[in-house]
C-alpha cells in the first residue's frame, strides 16, 4: 500500500511521526495500566450493562407486558433501538470498504475504531429482535434448519427473516474485515509483549511474520472483503427498511425507504464515529493521528448525508400529497401535526437543520461543536426511527384502535443498557488492540514516500530497517 503521496498534499498524520513513534504511540495504550478516566468510564459502562442484563431478565421473567406496547402499537422503543443501532454500524463499513475502494487515504486514521464500532453496534442491535419476542426461548424457530416439527419451515416472504440473514451476514463480514485488519497490528503488539500476553497475541495474530507474501495476501484479502462489504453497506439497511416498506401500513409502505434508510444510517454512523473519536483522541492522546482534517472530512459526510435525509423527509411529504391517496396523506399529516408532533420536529431539527452548521469551516473544525452536533444528530436519528414506528402505528387505518404509547422504565433501561454494553465492548477494545490501524497509518506517512525530502527524512529512511524488525 505504499503509494506515492504528492508533496503538495498536506499531511494526513501530524507531528512528523516516524514509524517508531507510531508503533510506540499506538501500542502503548494496550500495554500500560488503564488511566483513571478509563476506569471511571468502564465502571459506568459496566454498571449500565448490568442494568441491561437486569431489565432483559425482567422482561423475560414478567413478559412483554412489562413494556407499554399495546394492541395498536406493537413495536416501540425495541425496534426503534434496533434500527438505530444497526444504522450506527454503517459508518464503519462505509469507511473501511467504500472509502478503501475510493482510495480515501485519510480513512486509515479512523477506520479501525469505526469498524469496531460497527461490530459493537451490530451486537447491540442484534439484541432487540431477540428480546422483543414474546417467546424468546423459541427464537431458534427463525432459523431454517431441518427439524422434527413436521414440514415446518421459515417463511421466506417475511422481511423479518430477511433481517436474520442480512444482519448475520453483515456481522460476520464486518467481523472478518475488522479482524483481518487487526492481524498485522496484533503481531506488532505481540512483538513488544512478553509472557502470557505474548502467547495470547501470538495466537490471535495467527503467526504473522510480516513477510512480503503475508502482506500481499493480506492486501488481497482486504480488497476482497472490501468488495464484499460494499454492497452490504447498501443492502443491510435496505433490508431493515423492508420491515416497514413491504407492509400495508400507510407511512411505512413507501418505496423511498431503502435509500433514505441507507443515507440515514451513514449519517448516524458518522455522527457516532465523531462522538467516539473526539473522546478517544483526547483520552488516548491520538490528536496527531485523528486530526482536525479527519473530523473536518467526516463532518462533510455528515452535512451531505443529513441533507440527503432532509430531502427524503420532504420527498415523503410531497409524495404523500401528490399520491392523492388519503390514508397516505393522513399518515404524514399526522406525522407532522399529530400526537407525536414533538418527535417529528425534534427529528427535523436534529437531522436536517443542525448539520447545516457544518457548512461553516470553523464549526466543522471545532472539537466542541463537532462533539455536540454528533450527539444531536444521533438523538435526531433515534427520533426518526421513533417517528416512523410509533407515530405511524398510533394512527393507522381504523380510528377506533388509535392509541398512544410511552415507554416503561424497563424499556428505557434496556436502551440505556445497550449503550452500556456498547461502551463496555468499546472500552475493552481500546485496551486490547491498537485503536488506529498501525500498519495502514504507516503506509500513509509522508516520510514513507520515496519522494519525501522534508524533516526527519533521513531519520525515517534510516530507520526503515529497524522498524521493519520491530514489526
Amino acid at each position: 500500500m505504499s503509494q506515492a503521496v504528492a508533496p503538495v498534499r498536506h499531511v494526513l498524520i501530524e507531528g512528523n511521526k516516524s514509524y517508531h513513534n507510531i508503533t510506540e504511540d499506538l501500542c502503548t495504550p494496550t500495554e500500560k495500566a488503564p488511566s483513571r478516566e478509563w476506569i471511571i468510564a468502564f465502571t459506568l459502562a459496566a454498571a449500565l450493562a448490568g442494568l441491561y442484563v437486569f431489565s432483559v431478565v425482567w422482561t423475560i421473567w414478567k413478559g412483554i407486558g412489562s413494556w407499554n406496547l399495546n394492541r395498536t402499537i406493537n413495536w416501540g422503543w425495541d425496534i426503534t433501538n434496533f434500527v438505530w443501532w444497526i444504522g450506527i454500524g454503517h459508518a464503519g463499513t462505509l469507511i473501511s470498504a467504500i472509502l478503501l475502494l475510493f482510495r480515501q487515504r485519510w480513512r486509515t486514521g479512523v477506520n479501525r475504531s469505526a469498524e469496531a464500532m460497527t461490530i459493537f453496534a451490530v451486537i447491540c442491535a442484534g439484541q432487540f429482535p431477540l428480546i422483543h419476542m414474546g417467546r424468546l426461548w423459541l427464537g431458534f424457530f427463525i432459523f431454517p434448519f431441518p427439524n422434527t416439527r413436521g414440514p415446518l419451515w421459515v417463511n421466506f416472504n417475511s422481511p423479518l427473516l430477511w433481517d436474520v440473514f442480512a444482519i448475520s451476514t453483515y456481522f460476520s463480514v464486518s467481523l472478518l474485515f475488522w479482524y483481518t485488519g487487526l492481524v498485522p497490528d496484533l503481531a506488532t503488539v505481540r512483538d513488544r509483549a512478553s509472557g502470557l500476553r505474548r502467547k495470547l497475541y501470538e495466537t490471535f495474530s495467527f503467526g504473522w511474520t510480516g513477510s512480503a507474501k503475508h502482506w500481499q495476501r493480506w492486501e488481497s484479502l482486504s480488497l476482497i472483503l472490501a468488495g464484499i462489504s460494499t454492497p452490504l453497506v447498501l443492502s443491510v439497511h435496505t433490508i431493515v427498511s423492508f420491515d416497514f416498506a413491504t407492509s400495508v401500513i400507510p407511512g411505512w409502505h413507501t418505496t423511498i425507504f431503502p435509500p433514505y434508510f441507507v443515507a440515514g444510517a451513514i449519517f448516524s454512523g458518522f455522527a457516532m464515529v465523531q462522538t467516539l473519536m473526539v473522546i478517544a483522541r483526547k483520552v488516548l492522546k491520538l490528536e496527531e493521528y485523528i486530526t482536525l482534517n479527519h473530523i473536518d472530512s467526516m463532518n462533510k459526510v455528515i452535512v451531505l448525508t443529513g441533507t440527503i435525509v432532509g430531502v427524503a423527509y420532504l420527498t415523503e411529504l410531497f409524495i404523500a400529497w401528490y399520491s392523492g391517496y388519503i390514508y397516505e396523506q393522513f399518515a404524514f399529516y399526522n406525522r407532522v401535526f399529530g400526537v407525536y408532533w414533538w418527535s417529528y420536529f425534534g427529528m427535523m431539527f436534529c437531522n436536517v437543520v443542525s448539520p447545516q452548521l457544518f457548512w461553516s469551516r470553523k464549526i466543522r473544525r471545532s472539537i466542541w461543536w463537532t462533539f455536540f452536533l454528533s450527539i444531536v444528530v444521533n438523538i435526531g436519528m433515534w427520533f426518526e426511527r421513533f417517528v416512523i414506528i410509533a407515530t405511524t402505528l398510533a394512527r393507522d387505518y381504523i380510528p377506533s384502535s388509535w392509541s398512544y404509547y410511552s415507554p416503561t422504565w424497563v424499556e428505557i433501561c434496556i436502551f440505556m443498557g445497550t449503550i452500556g454494553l456498547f461502551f463496555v465492548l468499546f472500552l475493552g477494545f481500546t485496551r486490547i488492540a491498537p485503536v488506529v490501524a498501525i500498519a495502514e497509518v504507516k503506509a500513509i506517512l509522508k516520510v514513507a514516500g520515496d519522494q519525501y525530502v522534508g524533516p526527519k527524512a533521513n531519520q525515517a529512511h534510516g530507520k526503515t530497517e529497524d522498524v521493519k524488525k520491530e514489526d
Partner: protein
Amino acid sequence: MHQEKGIWVSTEELNQEESFLQSAEKEFVMEDLVDSDGAWTANRRDFLKMLGFGLGAATIAASCEIPMKRAVPYVTKPEEIVPGVANYYASSFVNGGDYCAVLVKTREGRPIKIEGNTLSKVTQGGTSARAQASVLDLYNTRRIQSPGSISNGELTEMDWNQLDEKVKGQLALGGQVRIITNTILSPTAKKALGEFTAKYPNARVVSYDPVSSAALLSANEQCFGVKAIPSNKFDEANVIVSFGADFLGTWISPVEYARAYAKGRKVDPKNPRMSRHYQVESHMSLTGSNADNRILVKPSEQGAAICALYNAVAALKGAASISGPAVNDKAAAALKKVARELVDNQGKSLVVSGSNNIMEQVITNKLNDLLGNLNQTVDFGTLSYQRQGDERDVMRVVEEMKQGQVGLAIIWGANPAYELPNAEAFVEAFSKVNTRISFNGVMDETTKVCTHAAPANHFLESWGDAEPKEGHLSLIQPTISPLFNTRQAELSLLLWAESANLNLEDEQPYYQYLKSNWASDVFAKQTAYSTPTAFWDMSLHDGIVELPASGRTVSFNEGASLNGSAVSKPGSSDVEISMYETVNLGNGSYAHNPWLQEMPDPINRTVWGNHLNIPVEWDGVNKINGWKDLNDGDNVEVTVNGKGVTCTVVKTFGQMPGTVSIALGQGRIEGGCGVGYGVNANPWLPVTGGLVQYGAGDVTVGEKVGEDKHFACVQHHHTMGVTAMSTKEEAVVNADEKVIGMDGSLTDRSVIFQASLASLPALQEKMNEFHEESDHLNQQTLYPDRTDYFGTGVKWGMFVDLSSCIGCGACQVACVSENNVPVVGKNEVKRHHEMTWLRIDRYFYGDLENPNVVYQPMMCQHCDNAPCENVCPVNATNHSMEGINQMAYNRCIGTRYCANNCPFKVRRFNWLDYTTADTWPANEEQVFWVEGEDKPYYADNLVRMVLNPDVTVRSRGVIEKCSFCVQRIQEGKLTAKSEERAIGDNDIRTACQTACPTGAIVFGNMNNADSEVNQKIEGAGVLAYQALEEINVRPGVRYAAKINNRNEELNS
C-alpha cells in the same frame, strides 16, 4: 492339506480348534462386566461409559418432568355423555324480569356456553350479553357454598335441617312475614309462594324491579284495566317515538324488541323503505344511538315533551289539548314535525315512554289511542310480564319493618340494600327484623345484613319455568348437579310451608312439583299433546311452549283523566343528571360478572366502572372540548340533592348540553369482583309519589380534583366525520378534520359507509365508484390470482349488516365465552391490552352536538391476501384452503409484526400470562385478580370449568385472534362427514352469529351460491363492501353500509 472349506478366517477356524468352536456356537459375543467368579472386570473406560450413560439417562429422565394430569374415566358412563361431544339442553335464562330462551351447551357434564333457543317466539334465538355471560356466574368463586348463619357479614355454616328448624321456629311465632323479590316470571314459583302465603296468612310477597316500570303498570291499569305491559310491535311501526325508553338495551324485553326493530329497518336496496325512529332523551342510550333523530330534552322535561307531542297530535286530530309545562323550543318545534308524521302513520306508529311518572305514561297511552295504535302496534292480546314490581310496596315494607312489625324477612334475588334509593333507611329498618333470610347466591349488600343464608341454586342447576309473556312458557332444567350445598328457593319455601304437594321421598322433589304443576295447569291449556307425559317430554326438549293467544283487545278508559300538571316539572337548575341502566350491568345485579364488566359500554366505550358522561363542546375553530374543560379520566366532585361523590368523567358525544349522566349498577360494596369500581348512583335517585325517578336537578359538578389513574376506555377516537358550525368560516364544516392531535381524523375512510335513506341513490353511486376504483387498483398487483384456488371447495365468509347491528354487545360476550378469551382487568384495559377477538367499534357522525351512531363489529377479516401472513418469519399464521386465516399458537414466537401489519388491528398479543397457562408465580402478579382472593382469577379451578375444551388456552407471548370459530367449523364438518352428506348451510354458525338478536351477522360458504351469506351479500348489492377494499387485502368479511332514516328537516 486338503482344504475342506474354501475360505477361512483364522488359523483357529482352519484348524477347527476348540476355542473357535466354542465361540462360534455363541452367535453374539458379549464380554461380561463380571467374570465367572463374580469379580469386577470392567476397566476405567467401561466405568466412564456406564457413568456417562447413567448420568445422561438420569438427567433426561429427571429434567423431562411430566406434569401430572389425571384423566379419570367414568366408572359407569352416563348414557347421554360421549366424551368430546357437546350436549345441548333447552332452558331459560331468568334473572328477575330479564328473560332469554336458551340452549345450554354442556361438555362432559359442564355447562360452558349459552346459545339462543330459536324455537322461542319471544327471543327467536337472540340473546343478550347478560344471558351469554350468565354461565360464568355458575363458576363464581364468591358463591355462598352452604346454608348458614351470618353475623358481621361472616357466614357460619349450618346444615339445611338446622336452618329449616330455625325458620319454622320463627314462623311459628306468628309475626309478619315479608318476602322481598324482583319480578318473578315463574308460574310454579308463584304457586309455591301462594302455598307459603296460604299457610302463613301473615306473609306477603312484595316485588320491585331494580329499574322500575311501576308507573307504566299503574297507568295501564288506569287506562286499560290491565296491570301489565302490552306487546310493543316495533316491526309493524313505521314511526317509533321513544321518550327515554331504552327498548333495544334494557327496557322490558330488549331481545324481543331488537329483533322486531331490526326487521322494520332492514333495507332492500330495490325497494327502499324502513321505519323511522325518534328518541327523546338527554343522554345517549343504546336505543338513542340507533335512532334516526334524537330530540334533546333535559330529564325534567320528559313530561313536558310528552305533553308537547300530545298537544301537537291532538291539534291535528282535533282532540282536546292539555295544559302541560313547556319544553325547550328546539324540541317543541321538532315534536310538531314528529306529530305530523305520526298522524300520517296512524295505526302504524308506536309511542313508548320509559318514564316512571304515571301521568306521563297515561298521556303516552292516550297518544297511542289517538293514533289508533291500540290493538295494532300496542297489542294487549299478549301481555309482557317482564316487569311486575312496584317499589311503592317495598317502601311500605320498610315502614313496617321500621315499626318492628316484621318478624321474618326473606330476600329472594333482590338486593334492596344496594338497589333502593333509600338503601340506608332500608338497612336500618331491616335490622329490626328478627330473622332475615337471603336466598341470594353471593354475599351481596343485603345478604350481608341478613341473619341467615339459604343460598339458592344457580339457574343452570335448577328446575323451573318462566312465563315472560302471556302464553309463552318456557322451562328451566338443570345442566349440572349443584356445585355446592345449595337448594332451590322454591323448594325451601315449600318445605317451610310444609306443602302437601311436595313429595320429599322423590329424588328431586321440586322437579316433581314442577312437573305435576305443568300437568295440571299448563297441559290443560294446550291442545297439541294428548298426554301429560308426551307434553312434558316435548316441552322439556323444546324448552318452550306456546299457548294460544288470548285475543284480548282493549280500549282507552275515558275515566283516566289527562292532567298536564301531574307530569314532571321542568327544573330550573343549570345542570341536570340522568341515571340509567346499562345493557351489560343492569342495576348492579350483573356487576360481579367479569365478562360483563370488561364488555365496553356501547356508547362511551369504558370498562370496569361507571363514568359521568359530560357533553362535548365545539370551540368553533379546531377543538372539541369537554364541558368545563374536563377531560376523560378527570375526577370531579358531583353533588346531587346534597349527596356528594367523586366521579370520573368521560366526554360523551350526544350528551345534551346542560346535562350529565351516569350509569347505575356500579359502586358495589359487597359480593364479588365488581366491588371497588365506579360509584353507586342509586342514592341520587329521587322518589316522587313513591316512584323512583331516573333524573334529577340540583346537580353541582365541581372542578377537577384529580385523575383516575386506571381510567380504562378501549376507544380513544370516537368520530367519523362530525360536522359543526365554524365561526371562522361561518359555515358547517367537517369538525373532525379541523381538529389536530388525538381527535383529528381523516373521515373519508373506506371503513364505514353510511347514508340516510333519502340519499341512498347517492350512496349507491358513491359505492359503485368506490368498488370500481378498488377493482382497478387491486388489479395492479404482484399477488397471484387465487380465484381458482379459493373458488373450489369451501370458502368461508361472513356478512355483517351495519344497519341491523344495534351495538348491544351480545356477540362480543359470546365470543369471549366460546373462545376462552381472557379477562385482563381494568389496569390492563387501560394499557390497551384487552384481548377481545371481536370488538364493536362505535363512530359518531353527523351533527357534533346531536350525532348519529354507526356500530361496526370488527373481528379478523380473514383476508385472502393477508398482510399478517407474509410478515410472520416462522409461518405461525397462514391461510387454510378454506379461506381462513389461522394461527398456530405453538409456532408463534411473538414478534408481533403481524399485529402491526394488520390494517384492522384485530390481532391480540398475550402481553402477560392472562390465563395463568404457565404456572410461574412471578407471572401471576399483574394479571386479573378478584380482590381478596388468594390466587389469580383464572388460576382457580372452579373458574376454569367454564373454559371451552375445544379451544386452546393461549399462553404468554403469543398472538391470538378471531378464528371464525374454527372449532365449530371442524365440528360441523365432522358431523356432516359422519352423516355422509355435504355440509349444509346451517351446519356451522359462529358464536357471534348465534348470539346476535337482530341477525346482523351471517356466516357461511361463499362458494355456495345459495348460502344465506351469499344471498345477503347479493341482496345488499353495491352497499356490500369490504373494509379497506382498495388496499387489496381481500377480506373475507363483507359489511353492508349503514342506512338510517334521518329526518333532515327535524333539526334544522
